[in-house]
C-alpha cells in the first residue's frame, strides 16, 4: 500500500526541533501532516531518532504525523544536571510530559529494545492515553546481560574498547536476512553512542520488570520479534504477549534486534496492524 502523491508537500521532509521537558533539552525528528493520527517512535539503548529514518517518511506519506525524539543524553538531547537515567519508567514519564507539551492526542507508541520497554511501561501507567502500541524486541522482563559486566561499565576503564565491541556485537545482533548495507549503517549508528549512556540504558533494561502491570495495557498492542534476535528470547516475548489482553505477536524471520532499520517491510507490518484497528 502506498499513500497519495505528496512529493511537493513540505511536511514530508524530516524536520528537527527542540523543546525543554522536565529540564531536559529534547531534540526530535518530525514528519507528516497528521490527518491520519500521530505516531511517537522511541529508539534503542544509546541511540537516537536516526534509527527511525526509514519509517518516518513512509508514514508521513500516508498522512500520519510521526515524531522520533532523542531520549535525554542521546543524540542531540541534553541531560538535566548531567545525570544519566537508569530507569525505563523515568524515561517513560519524560516522554509522557513530551506528549503533553506537544498536546498530542492519543498517539500510537512505537519502540524498540529499551524503546519497546518504554512504550509498554507508558501503556501500563497511562492506559487510556494511546491509540495503540507497537513494541519491538522487548518484553515485560529482560535479564539479557550479566550484572557484573554492566556494573563494570559504569566506568570507561571497566569496559575498554566499548565502541569497537559494540560495533562488532551489533553485526551479530542483526538478522541473517538483513542487507549488508543496512548492517553497516546500524553498526556505525551504534558506535556513535556514548558508552556511559548505553550502559545506563542497559542497566535500566536489565532491571525493568513490568510483570505485575502488563495486564493494565488496554489499547491494541503488537509485539514484534525477529527470529535472529539474541538479546531477548522468544519465550519472554510470548509471555509478554499473553500478559497483555488481546495483544498480537508478529515474528519476522531473518530479522534481528533492529527491525525498523533492518527490514524493508517493517513499516508495512505496522501499517497492516494499524489498519486492522481502523487507525
Amino acid at each position, binding site marked *: 500500500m502506498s499513500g497519495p502523491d505528496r512529493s511537493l508537500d513540505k511536511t514530508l521532509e524530516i524536520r528537527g526541533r527542540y523543546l525543554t521537558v522536565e529540564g531536559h533539552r529534547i531534540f526530535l525528528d518530525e514528519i507528516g501532516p497528521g490527518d491520519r493520527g500521530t505516531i511517537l517512535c522511541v529508539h534503542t539503548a544509546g541511540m537516537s531518532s536516526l534509527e527511525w529514518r526509514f519509517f518516518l517518511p513512509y508514514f508521513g506519506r500516508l498522512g500520519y504525523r510521526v515524531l522520533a525524539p532523542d531520549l535525554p543524553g542521546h543524540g542531540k538531547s541534553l541531560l538535566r544536571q548531567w545525570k544519566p537515567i537508569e530507569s525505563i519508567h523515568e524515561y517513560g514519564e519524560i516522554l509522557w510530559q513530551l506528549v503533553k507539551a506537544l498536546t498530542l492526542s492519543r498517539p500510537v507508541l512505537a519502540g524498540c529494545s529499551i524503546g519497546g520497554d518504554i512504550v509498554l511501561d507508558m501503556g501500563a501507567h497511562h492506559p487510556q492515553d494511546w491509540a495503540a502500541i507497537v513494541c519491538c524486541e522487548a518484553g515485560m522482563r529482560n535479564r539479557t546481560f550479566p550484572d557484573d559486566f554492566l556494573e563494570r561499565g559504569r566506568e570507561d576503564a571497566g569496559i*575498554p*574498547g566499548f565502541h*569497537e*565491541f559494540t560495533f*562488532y556485537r551489533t*553485526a*551479530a545482533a542483526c538478522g541473517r536476512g538483513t542487507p549488508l548495507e543496512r548492517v553497516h549503517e546500524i553498526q556505525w549508528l551504534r558506535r556513535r553512542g556514548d558508552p556511559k549512556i548505553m550502559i545506563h540504558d542497559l542497566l535500566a533494561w536489565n532491571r525493568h520488570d513490568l510483570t505485575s502491570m502488563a495486564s493494565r495495557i488496554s489499547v491494541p498492542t503488537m509485539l514484534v520479534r525477529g527470529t535472529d534476535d*539474541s538479546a531477548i528470547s522468544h519465550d519472554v516475548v510470548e509471555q509478554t504477549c499473553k500478559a497483555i489482553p488481546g495483544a498480537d505477536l508478529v515474528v519476522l524471520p531473518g530479522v534481528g534486534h533492529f527491525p525498523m532499520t533492518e527490514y524493508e517491510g517493517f513499516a508495512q507490518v505496522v501499517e497492516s496492524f494499524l489498519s486492522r484497528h481502523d487507525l
Partner: protein
Amino acid sequence: MGSLFSPGWENHFREWLNSSPDFQSGARWFDGSVLLGMGDEILWLKIYDGRVIDAKPHPTPLGFTFALEASEESWRALLQEDRNEILSYTGARKVAVEGNLLEFMRLTKTVIVLVDGMRALFRDPKIGKNIG
C-alpha cells in the same frame, strides 16, 4: 585441535594472521598472549606489535592474557556458522573467556580476526576438517 584441522595448521594460522591488515592494525597496541583451548588441545599465541611472534601447542609458564575455551562441539559449530558469531558464542558462554576480560574487550577486533582466520582455514580442504 586435531579434530578440526590437519597437523601443522598452526603454521598456516600464524601466516594467515600475520598477513591480515585487520589483524596487524587491531593488535598493533597489544603485547600479550592469547590461548585457544579445546579440552587438552591448545594453541598459545604470543602477539606483539600487530604480529604473532610465537606459537606453541602447549601452555607456557608465562600464562596468557586471555583465553578462549570451548568444547569440540562448540568450536565446530562456531566455525560452521554462516558468519562470524564469536561474540554471540562468548555472550552465551558457548565459548568461555578466561583471564583478563578488560584486555579481551579492548581486543575485540583482534578476536574477530582470529576467528575469521580459523573459519577461513577450516574451510580450506587441505587444512580444515569441515565434515558438515
